[in-house]
């Protein structure tokens, strides 16, 4: 699965069947300024590539840039759901604890080649507000009076647009939005020496902080995935008109998942998506990534933390000032996502990462009494890991019973049939519990102070 149309739709000139399955966006929000970078994982022939994105203002030439694809790769590798491995120490022997990290494999298979371009300057209630050449792209900024005119103009200029597109264009025209129309100049594309279309970055001032996803659904059947890498100065970004929930994280999972982590996460995401009603935005990573901040930025980090240069490239060039990174993953389809995604910046700086834990058993001789206790616990733990795996992904774990039995087999016969203890690992429901001492003192004061107050003269007020 790959390829992307993001907020816009691809407008094919040939009869290429186009599906927009996955896209990536970098969103930088600072006050009223938004910088959007869209990755072009376009599946078809590059000469057929064209994209229409509604934007709130007519962008100037300097507001449009082309950035390198590796920016997305760096961010994705850094913030992707991660697998962490720990090694148990042998209770019979002394061992040093160490851990290692495995990077998640998020598949990406982009393809693309040439393209052709033609222009007509006829107007059908369509105004060409600006015309730029940026990198390998020819860019037009259009404003239109009505969708039929815009559709006709696009068709007259040789674009084939989805049959239902004009219905979706109308609301954007009425909202006084402009259309950012992109095509590839084949000559320059070939000269550039790149195989792939590079991401386009737009910069504008607007009080609207949103991603217009509705256009992208005009030529897609079924659901599409979008990864949003958001950067702010203050804290997390969250969705205003859909729920933002954390993807299940910090779960102990079975060792054999290591070989199929990609499939594991895919199924986990699909299940979480269904369970939450198919209309939520998932949080996959949230962390303070300020370059000067020397604290831990992930635990463990699956890739090198983004460099100041990468922040600058993404548009979060605040000269080392506080930077907060939020990674969201949304799987959207027309029926469950009728509205465009609207976001807000919050002061929430709580860290989060999608993290799954593998625990390797202790090695060596475990026949001592502590060793046997350990093995007993290990068997329970593995049983729970299987249950967890089934709950997270829906995988059939019955065939993996050997994973538990191999541990049981190492127990002495009299210990082998012990029952699994109940409530072995009950945790408090919240992370802020039990409350800290200042909190307890404050609450105690709230109870005591009213008791100490002397009543004043009688009054008749009723509150």
């Amino acid at each position, binding site marked *: 699965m790959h390829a992307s149309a993001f907020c816009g739709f691809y407008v094919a000139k040939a009869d290429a069947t186009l599906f927009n399955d996955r896209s990536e966006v970098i969103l930088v929000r600072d006050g009223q300024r938004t910088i959007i970078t869209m990755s072009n994982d376009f599946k078809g022939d590059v000469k057929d590539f064209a994209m229409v994105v509604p934007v709130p203002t007519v962008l100037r030439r300097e507001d449009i840039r082309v950035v390198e694809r590796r920016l997305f790769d760096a961010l994705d590798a850094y913030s992707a759901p991660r697998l962490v491995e720990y090694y148990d120490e042998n209770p019979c022997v002394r061992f040093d604890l160490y851990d290692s990290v495995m990077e998640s494999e998020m598949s990406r298979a982009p393809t693309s080649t040439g393209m052709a371009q033609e222009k007509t300057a006829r107007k059908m209630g369509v105004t060409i507000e600006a015309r730029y050449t940026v990198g390998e792209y020819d860019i037009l900024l259009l404003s239109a009076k009505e969708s039929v005119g815009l559709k006709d103009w696009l068709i007259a200029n040789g674009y084939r647009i989805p049959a239902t597109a004009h219905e979706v264009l109308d609301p954007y025209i009425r909202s006084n939005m402009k259309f950012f129309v992109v095509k590839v100049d084949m000559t320059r594309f070939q000269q550039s020496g790149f195989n792939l279309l590079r991401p386009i970055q737009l910069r504008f001032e607007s009080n609207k902080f949103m991603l217009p996803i509705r256009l992208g659904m005009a030529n897609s059947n079924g659901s599409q995935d979008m990864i949003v890498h958001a950067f702010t100065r203050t804290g997390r970004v969250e969705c205003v008109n859909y729920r933002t929930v954390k993807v299940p994280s910090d779960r102990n999972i079975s060792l054999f998942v290591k070989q199929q982590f990609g499939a594991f996460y895919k199924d986990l995401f699909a299940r979480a998506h269904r369970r939450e009603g198919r209309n939520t935005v998932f949080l996959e990573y949230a962390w303070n990534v300020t370059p000067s901040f020397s604290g831990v930025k992930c635990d463990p980090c699956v890739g090198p933390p983004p460099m100041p240069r990468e922040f600058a490239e993404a548009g979060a060039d605040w000269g080392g000032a506080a930077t907060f990174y939020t990674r969201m993953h949304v799987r959207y389809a027309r029926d469950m996502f009728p509205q465009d995604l609207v976001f807000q910046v919050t002061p929430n700086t709580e860290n989060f990462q999608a993290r799954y834990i593998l625990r390797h058993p202790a090695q060596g001789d475990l026949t001592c009494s502590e060793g046997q206790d350990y093995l007993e616990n290990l068997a329970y733990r593995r049983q729970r890991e299987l249950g967890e795996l089934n709950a997270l992904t829906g995988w059939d774990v019955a065939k993996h019973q050997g994973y538990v039995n191999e541990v049981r087999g190492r127990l002495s016969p009299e210990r082998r049939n012990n029952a699994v203890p109940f409530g072995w690992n009950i945790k408090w429901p919240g992370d802020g519990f039990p409350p800290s001492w200042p909190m307890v003192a404050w609450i105690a004061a*709230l109870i005591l102070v009213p008791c100490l107050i002397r009543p004043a003269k009688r009054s008749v007020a009723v509150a």
Partner: protein
Amino acid sequence: MRFLQPINAILVFLKQDARHFQIVFLAGFLLFGILQLHWDAELTRYLLLLGTCLGVQACFIRWKSLPWSSLKSAAVSALGMCLLLKAAGPGALVLGAVVAIASKFILRVKGRHVFNPGNLGIAAAVLLTGDAWVSPGQWGSGVALFFLVTAAGCMVVLRVGRIDTSLAFLGTLAVLEYFRTVLYLGWEMDVWLHRLSNGSLLLFTFFMITDPMTTPRAQRMRVIWSVAIAVLSFLLGWYFWINSAPIWALLIISTITPILDHLQHGDAFNWNAERSERTARNEQHQLT
């Protein structure tokens, strides 16, 4: 019908005082959010809001010799804030809770408090600290039916709260949104429905603007007041792109509540309807 007795007892309890109904429902929504919508179970936040609100109320109860039953009002405000207000640190929560409760006793015009306590508390926490925020998306839109049916249904059946404000507000907003989204912009009907079925909006509609202590006393003025809030939140949302616009609209419109009360007098509200009837009778008796 012995088996109906417990249900009957619950209904009597809820009807006895509108705040019972509010406390039960708000606590239910909080549990629903934590268990079903997988909110972060920030127990510290909930404890802090509830504790501070009750504590500050208790101070004023002692000071002004008020009945202890008014703690229920503080609990309602606290639960409302638990559902709406989020903060990165405890300071914003404490400030919000203190402002909410203290405003009831300090910001008074002609013996009535002006602002909805929860509303003012949220506004104070967000504006003054910059450390707090409201998450309008936390309910999603899937629980709309649940909200509408339970809240509106119970309000009608139990005759608590002021359903006229809810209906006037939601009705006006629905019409305005329909004109804007469907007729003007040309979106489909489900976009309109999705906007209106936002859980936070419905919570606001049925539990914040129905507070009888801060709505105008006369029914006609209440309707005008609700319509004004709906129009203002529509404008703030669409033209200034402000999230959780209804909260700010209520804050602004609350300032004219005393004027509306002055224009048309209505009956003062008393939480305990039965008792107030009794008092009225007593007063009459004393007068004659």
